């Protein structure tokens, strides 16, 4: 069977060099079709329109030079075999190119018809091999995911059975039991819960590995979330008489992050801190901003536990890593918690790291992106190079009629937010994204450039329009109220940017105070039950 001609895309701006390459190619024993372009932009368009079998690439073109040239080609077509044809020997550059995925690096002067042909042929073969390896790697990963998802489902059924029957016994539903029997059953139930948590971590880690971990960012008040996490970990800490303190600098801005995922990270770090701190110890959560990095808020969880050895420190975020020193009869789980925490923080665009001193304690720190309120507020609250005279924060609160929520509450909240955006002036008011709250209620905020007198018209409009939503009517209510935002009066010595930032801080404080007043009410409810 005759070979179909190899489609060669020659990217070369020097006509003499191009002719030389053509000559070498026509001398070869295999049929080739050569298409020559002299600009990188034309080449990229060609690759898109009709991908060739192989690319022969000169690095210095009218519109691109050096490493940039092959980087752009590989970026456009990572699966395309690329052979660099260079004017001179440059071992460093050649290695760099190969490491980034180029198949070969030939010097034009040394090029014979035979070695050019061979280089091209091998480049095509190697690239095909790489591709099939990559495909099979992906298939294996996918298989592993499906396998784990299947296994964890199958494991959960008998686990649920153990849980159900042990709790029937413990609750006395199957008849009276002795205190000792109750203790033993509690051990069974605790172990079942541990096993359940492990299965969940296993699935999360697999998702992280295959890039299927998802986050849904919202506007959130970090302090609130940290308080929630501390409240959740407190019973565990109390058992060991460990104190858990929160230290927060004033004016932590609103963040743009997924509240459930951030809570997961916080719980994970707090759980570790409590686990590895001796009784009577101390765990401190600090929140602060750093002047050098105003786009991020920093959270650290510090304990005065036994610390981590310098050898273990670099491995701590690895999958399945467990501190060998901690094998003292304590069950540690799978060693996936910090790996998952790292993946979640990275998904937010943040970083997580650890500092530790054996015998003194350990501090985990991570950062999360700030919701850039000041930037978004600027056009809304300034007018002719000055702050507007009056600014009002409007709070729109959606509350389900009953708990649990009936119908598709989340969809109703999304619809309401859409409608809210149409109830305000596009150029004068700013609608913040949904705010993270505890429970099913949803709260939206509008920063309106008006005064308290005029804002009532807006509030009436909001309540009328959202309240008239058929989907909301059946299952929930809407309320709206407003508060004036403090406007700095000592504006003369500050730049407009600084004044806007001050207003943004004022808005954040109002939002945080609002959220705190509602959720502290929730927390009270919880403690009463215990």
């Amino acid at each position: 069977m005759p070979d179909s001609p190899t489609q060669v895309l020659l990217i070369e701006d020097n006509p003499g060099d191009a002719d030389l390459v053509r000559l070498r190619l026509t001398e070869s024993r295999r049929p080739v079709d050569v298409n020559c372009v002299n600009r990188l932009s034309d080449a990229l368009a060609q690759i898109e329109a009709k991908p060739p079998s192989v690319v022969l690439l000169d690095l210095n073109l009218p519109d691109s030079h050096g490493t940039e040239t092959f980087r752009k080609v590989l970026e456009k077509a990572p699966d395309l075999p690329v052979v660099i044809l260079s004017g001179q020997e440059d071992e460093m550059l050649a290695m760099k190119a190969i490491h980034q995925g180029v198949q070969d690096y030939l010097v034009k002067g040394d090029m014979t018809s035979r070695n050019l042909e061979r280089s091209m042929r091998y480049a095509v073969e190697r690239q095909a091999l790489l591709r099939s390896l990559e495909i099979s790697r992906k298939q294996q990963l996918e298989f592993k995911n499906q396998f784990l998802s299947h296994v964890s489902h199958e494991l959960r059924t008998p686990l649920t059975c153990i849980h159900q029957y042990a709790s029937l016994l413990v609750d006395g539903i199957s008849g009276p039991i002795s205190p000792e029997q109750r203790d033993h059953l509690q051990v069974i139930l605790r172990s079942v819960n541990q096993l359940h948590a492990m299965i969940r971590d296993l699935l999360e880690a697999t998702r992280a590995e295959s890039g299927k971990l998802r986050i849904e960012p919202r506007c959130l008040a970090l302090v609130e979330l940290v308080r929630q996490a501390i409240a959740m970990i407190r019973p565990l800490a109390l058992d060991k008489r460990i104190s858990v303190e929160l230290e927060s600098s004033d004016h932590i801005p609103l963040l743009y992050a997924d509240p459930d995922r951030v809570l997961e990270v916080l719980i994970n770090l707090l759980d570790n801190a409590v686990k590895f701190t001796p009784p009577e110890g101390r765990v401190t959560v600090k929140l602060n901003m750093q002047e050098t990095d105003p786009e991020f808020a920093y959270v650290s969880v510090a304990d005065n536990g036994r610390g981590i050895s310098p050898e273990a420190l670099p491995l701590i975020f690895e999958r399945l890593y467990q501190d060998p020193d901690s094998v003292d009869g304590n069950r540690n789980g799978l060693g996936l918690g910090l790996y998952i925490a790292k993946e979640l923080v990275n998904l937010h665009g943040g970083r997580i790291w650890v500092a530790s001193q054996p015998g003194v304690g350990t501090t985990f720190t991570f950062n999360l992106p700030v919701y850039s309120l000041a930037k978004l507020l600027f056009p809304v609250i300034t007018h002719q190079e000055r702050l507007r005279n009056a600014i009002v924060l409007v709070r729109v609160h959606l509350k389900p009629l009953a708990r649990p929520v009936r119908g598709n509450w989340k969809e109703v909240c999304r619809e309401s937010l859409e409608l809210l955006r149409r109830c305000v002036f596009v150029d004068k008011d700013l609608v913040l994204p949904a705010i993270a709250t505890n429970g099913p209620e949803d709260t939206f905020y509008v920063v309106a450039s008006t005064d308290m007198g005029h804002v009532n018209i807006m509030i009436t409009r909001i309540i009328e329009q959202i309240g008239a939503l058929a989907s909301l009517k059946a299952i929930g209510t809407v309320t709206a109220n407003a508060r004036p935002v403090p406007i700095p009066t000592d504006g003369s010595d500050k730049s407009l940017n600084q004044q806007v930032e001050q207003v943004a801080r004022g808005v954040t404080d109002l939002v945080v105070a609002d959220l705190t007043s509602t959720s502290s009410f929730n927390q009270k409810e919880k403690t009463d039950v215990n």
Partner: protein
Amino acid sequence: MSTEIKDEGPNFDRAKILIVDDDPELRMALKLRLRANHFETVSASDGYSAIALAQKERPNLIILDLGLPAGNGFTVLKRLQESDSLSHIPVIVLTARDPQANELRSLDSGATAFFQKPADNNELLQVIRASLRSASAWGAALPS
């Protein structure tokens, strides 16, 4: 410690709950738990008989597994939603399946709540009572 939760509002003592699960032992455990909390129970082991039983028994609430023979949980949810006489019944999904892939889908398909197995019994009972309360507020008849 007791699982009894004090009832506020109407008395649900005789509310009837349909348990749909293909695992007989899990069905039994749930039945014992609910009966200890003074609920009446009926149970089905597949999607087809779940719908038939819902029509015949008119339960006040349904606890539904997703992985079922003869019409999975989503099919059951759909059939319930389509029926004028059954769509008002609150459905609590209780499944071993992964919430990431199934929670929103269940709620979108008309479920009132989603629990992954093993669920916390107290939480489940609280949601059962709350669902019955809101269902009765919506005019679904409870046995008097």
